[in-house]
């Protein structure tokens, strides 16, 4: 045996034997394509980060509003964001919305998905169809707006959470996971041992679903953190706006567009002014950071979640 193994040539990669080595030109083209694509994503993010730490002098000597190579580090922009003004309020509001919204959404989704994963129960099929039908037809912007008004939620922060609290797609993903990845025997065994549905859900099913729950929580959290449209639609009259709306106003102001003029004053009236570009980029960094922090923990699972929901099997 050992003799045979030592004869076996050592291969450089784990390319299958039958696969021919690509031509150098082909390899180069592919490498170039992939590198350019990755660079097009990474470089702007890097430039945003570098600019957010730039001082006024560094920015003006670079002659623009985005730097690739920082010459010095200044925290003026971040000091301004967290100095307790409108930007701090906005970040706090967005964080609160994200936490409360994700909690509500997750509870609703788990309950719905578990109920629907127990096939053959009373009203199981009608409820399933009730949920699946929502995929085929959306109510439209105006009727939704009207209902929010009728419920008295217009210009209330609840209108940013409640109308979109249930992602039916997430329910279906989670239901598929409960049905395919948790052995029925386990649930039956719990039943025989006298556990009710609630106990089965909390003691057996949920502890086995931590990874997918984390992914679904991330999807919801990103949705709430990034919410812009619902704030434009449902809460235009509130003083403290979610961070995306604030960022949009700052963008308008630096593009010299009419909407932005008064907004610029609103976010820059406190004390020592950080450079406009740096301040704006620092807000961008603040909106990216929570996502980037969560990302590595979730990344290895989300492919699985997306596929459970989308491809048969």
């Amino acid at each position, binding site marked *: 045996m050992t003799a045979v193994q030592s004869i076996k040539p050592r291969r450089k990669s784990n390319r299958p034997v039958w*696969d*021919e080595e690509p031509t150098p030109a082909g390899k180069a083209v592919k490498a170039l394509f992939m590198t350019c694509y990755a660079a097009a*994503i990474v470089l702007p993010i890097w430039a945003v980060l570098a600019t957010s730490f730039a001082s006024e002098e560094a920015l003006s000597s670079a002659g623009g509003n985005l730097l690739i190579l920082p010459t010095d580090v200044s925290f003026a922009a971040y000091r301004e964001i967290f100095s307790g003004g409108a930007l701090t309020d906005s970040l706090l509001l967005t964080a609160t919305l994200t936490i409360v919204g994700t909690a509500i959404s997750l509870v609703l989704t788990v309950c719905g998905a578990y109920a629907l994963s127990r096939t053959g129960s009373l009203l199981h099929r009608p409820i399933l169809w009730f949920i699946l039908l929502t995929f085929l037809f959306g109510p439209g912007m105006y009727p939704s707006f009207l209902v929010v008004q009728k419920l008295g939620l217009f210009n209330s922060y609840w209108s940013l959470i409640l109308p979109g*609290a*249930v992602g039916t797609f997430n329910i279906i993903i989670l239901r598929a996971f409960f049905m395919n990845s948790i052995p029925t025997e386990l649930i039956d065994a719990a039943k025989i041992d006298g556990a009710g549905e609630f106990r089965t859900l909390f003691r057996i099913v949920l502890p086995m679903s931590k990874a997918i729950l984390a992914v679904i929580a991330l999807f919801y959290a990103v949705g709430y953190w990034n919410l*812009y449209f619902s704030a434009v639609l449902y809460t235009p009259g509130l003083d403290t706006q979610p961070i995306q709306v604030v960022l949009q106003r700052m963008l308008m102001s*630096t593009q010299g567009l009419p909407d932005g003029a008064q907004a610029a004053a609103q976010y820059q009236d406190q004390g020592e002014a950080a450079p406009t570009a740096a301040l704006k980029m620092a807000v961008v960094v603040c909106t990216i950071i929570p996502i980037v922090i969560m990302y590595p923990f979730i990344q290895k699972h989300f492919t699985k979640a997306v596929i459970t929901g989308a491809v048969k099997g």
Partner: protein
Amino acid sequence: MATLQSTAPPDADATRSADRPVVRRRRTVGQRLRHDWPLLVLALPVVAHLTVFHYWPTAWNIIAFMDYSPYRAFWDNPFVGFAWFQRLFSDPYFTPALLNTLKFASLNLLFMFPLSIVLALAMNSIISLKVRSTFQSIVYLPHFFSWVLVVTVFVQVLGSDGLVSNWIMGAGGERLNFTSNPDTFLLLVWMQWAWKDAGWGMIIFLAALASINPSLYEAAASDGANRWRRLWHITLPSIRPVIILLLILQIGGILSVGFEQYQLQRQSIGYQSTEVLDTYVYYQSIIGSQGESFGTAAGLFKGVIGLILILIANNIAHRLGEQGIYQKS
């Protein structure tokens, strides 16, 4: 929607219930209620939520056929038939908005979809796992960024004061006005899509590629098929069901190209190039003064066309022998 067939196949439900004791079927409703009430309690919040925030507004679509005024009692509003739709189709701003929507949707269909497939194929051919996972982490990330952020970054990089513009001017060139030029808006939209979502669109194809049996490739290779023939005769046919499934979904969503990306760039580009159906509804009836019934009619038009398109596309898929989004039952 992709999941209708995958997670709720009628036959899968049938096999599951076949596993259960037959006795269960003989129970009366009362007995089943006593047995299953916790499940109903668990389903109740979701059902209530969808009733209030999905089905109730859907029912409100009826005002598209009424001369609705919020100051009248509901049933005092006279029915006017399709008058609002007539007014919608004769509105000078509606047709451009519809055409823009179709333009962006076909752009998506023709140039985004293939980009994701090409990316997935390129990715799938990377053999080193390290390179592969690094690349994956990078290209998925922008999917989680908001449109506000994407547009901001684009203005900073490609705008008239942006990074690229400064390089060009530094080299003696002219100022770039890419992010405020209506003529190149289509290209800008495509670049923003590609930046944000092309990588994410790859996930599903990667999964389909991973499920292809490698012995097929091995057999083809030993029969003398080179990599292009293997791509054409094995890879593409194997991922065809997924491609068709996604195509149907795309066609169903053809009138829903989104709101934020266009609303955000409306001021810098101008409304003529950025108006799509969603922004049209918003600016005409929520911001503007076209009224409740008009906005509802425009939204209903969009929803009904979307529904019809998805049913047609699915029907065609069935005729071609594909599964589509739901199975014929």
